[in-house]
């Protein structure tokens, strides 16, 4: 992308433009679109960790839940004190919503730091398991905290999520991840992915890169969680279990690890697939899982990965 800032500005304008027509779009279609957007944020942010940096995290839903809970808590308990229960005007709502999302994102990033510092010393399968474990622990903690509604979860979250916010954050996430990876600093992520030992040998602090990738990934997962909470209006701990993490990982892998465009396409496809298969509701998840197996067998490098396999041999800078 030659002019990322321009592309971001265009995307934000487009988001604003589309949101002007949101009332004339079919509500079902709009819901699906919001779902796609949230999944794109999740997949692109996880791609920074799993794809670009080459660390295998299975706990993304855990960070999503941290963001969802804390941003919902801000909207439920803090925002009404400032703008009243009725919810103020459009601008006030928007401002407090962004603040709530950022609060959720920061909390998720902090959780990412807490999880990342000890566990990123591990590699491969082991790292996957530790992140899975942390994801489950976060879920059990939310189940036990009364303030967050325990196993029943939080209800009555204000419906702040609109297509405008979702598309904007999709654009921002893609922008940040792309610019970061293409920056001088970001080469460290790719180097860590390509050969950790060689990177350490030339003086890169790979642990630091891993933690930074992890924290940024967790931040955007938290944002996605916040959007999700203000979209579904009710969140329960079981909505963010291990299966949710797996779903996001599958998007990253099908898209082709480290390929942002592919991951975006995979997120779109995998969110649409269950919807398209809705007429055969009973069998749709069977078909979904069968497709997953077949895709891995016939296109193990990812569905949309066309370039990485070509550049792999000349990957060393």
């Amino acid at each position, binding site marked *: 992308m030659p002019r990322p800032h321009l592309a971001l500005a265009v995307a934000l304008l487009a988001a604003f433009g589309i949101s002007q027509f949101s009332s004339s779009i079919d509500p079902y279609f709009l819901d699906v679109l919001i779902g796609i957007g949230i999944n794109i944020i999740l997949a692109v942010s996880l791609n920074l960790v799993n794809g670009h940096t080459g660390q295998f995290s299975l706990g993304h839903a855990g960070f999503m839940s941290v963001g969802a809970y804390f941003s919902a808590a801000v909207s439920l308990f803090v925002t009404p004190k400032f703008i009243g229960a009725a919810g103020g005007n459009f601008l006030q709502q928007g401002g407090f919503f962004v603040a709530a999302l950022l609060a959720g994102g920061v909390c998720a990033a902090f959780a990412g730091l807490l999880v990342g510092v000890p566990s990123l*010393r591990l590699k491969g399968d*082991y790292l996957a398991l*530790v992140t*899975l*474990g942390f994801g489950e622990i976060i879920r059990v903690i939310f189940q036990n905290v009364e303030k967050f509604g325990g196993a029943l979860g939080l209800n009555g979250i204000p419906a702040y999520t609109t297509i405008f916010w979702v598309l904007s954050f999709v654009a921002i996430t893609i922008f940040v991840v792309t610019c970061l990876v293409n920056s001088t600093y970001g080469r460290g992520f790719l180097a860590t992915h390509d050969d950790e030992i060689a990177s350490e040998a030339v003086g890169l602090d790979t642990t630091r890169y891993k933690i930074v990738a992890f924290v940024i990934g967790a931040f955007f997962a938290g944002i996605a969680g916040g959007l999700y909470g203000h979209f579904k209006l009710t969140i329960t701990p079981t909505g963010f279990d291990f299966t949710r993490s797996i779903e996001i990982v599958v998007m990253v892998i099908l898209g082709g690890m480290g390929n942002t465009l592919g991951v975006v396409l995979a997120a779109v496809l995998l969110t649409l697939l269950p919807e398209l298969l809705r007429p055969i509701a009973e069998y749709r998840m069977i078909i979904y*899982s069968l497709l*997953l*197996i077949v895709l891995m*067998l016939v296109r193990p490098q990812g569905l949309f990965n066309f370039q990485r396999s070509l550049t792999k041999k000349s990957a060393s800078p």
Partner: protein
Amino acid sequence: MASAPSESDNRRFDPSTLNPQLSTPLSEFLQQLLNGLSLGAIYALIALGYTMVYGVLRFINFAHSDVFMVGAFIGYYAGKLVPEGTLWGGMIVLLAAMLGCAVLGMTIERLAYRPLRGGPTLNVLITAIGVSLLLEYTGQVFFGAAPRTFPQVFPTTNFQFASLTISSNQVAVIVIAVLLMIALQFIVHRTKMGTAMRAVSLNPKAAQLVGVNNDVVISFTFGLGSALAGAGGILYALNYPSIDPLMGVMPGLKAFVAAILGGIGNIPGAALGGLLLGTVETYVNGSQWSTYKDAIAFAILIIILLFRPAGLLGRFTTEKV
């Protein structure tokens, strides 16, 4: 569908209903230990399958926990064909589940994992997740998502030793698990196939060079591990008599933690890890922290991976450039 048997309270591991007349701390301790060991024996059986597959293929077979679920369902249907509460009927159900799961495990390996062998581990991992989802959702369509009551295929009585209550199902769990582990130890260390398994686990290429047929060995390993998972499914269903297509997820994850705790790829380690985890979990369940029961296994996992990544009985390997 059979209605819930009236004595089902006696069969649960929930210590609060198991023995209301518990008095001394010592007898409570022993009772919990017993409950923990029988839960741990089931974890150990599942963990053995994980650890064996990891030993030969170096990947986490996520579908293993669903093979465990299928085992319980095979037992459910087989249990309808034999009279309830007889020893021979119970053994037939157990064998049917083990055989069915062995066939299922080998089929999964042949169709889903073998074509990917030699590729990146990550892809096999995702395929395993796909197989796991496939089994779960297929189960939900064919068996129905609602929980079912597992028939009491073995004779049930309660033995009373002083203030300790031992149900015959707990005895069955421990006896069957121990017998199966002894049998496994025999197969792995005393038979030609077991030697081949250990050879493949040590170095697949070298094993192939000295004439081991890796495909056969890996297939056999999957069959063996899945049979143990099937047995685990029956034993679990006997003690928690409600089964559903998602029943494997949590025990599966915990059994995997048990495998890591003992040292992944290490067979006695998996048994030890299962027993330890089951015991710790039962004690936590009996304390005021009972709602954190599911988190404890993962906390143990994290601690062990941070401080002793090779597991309790595992051997450390240094990374070479």
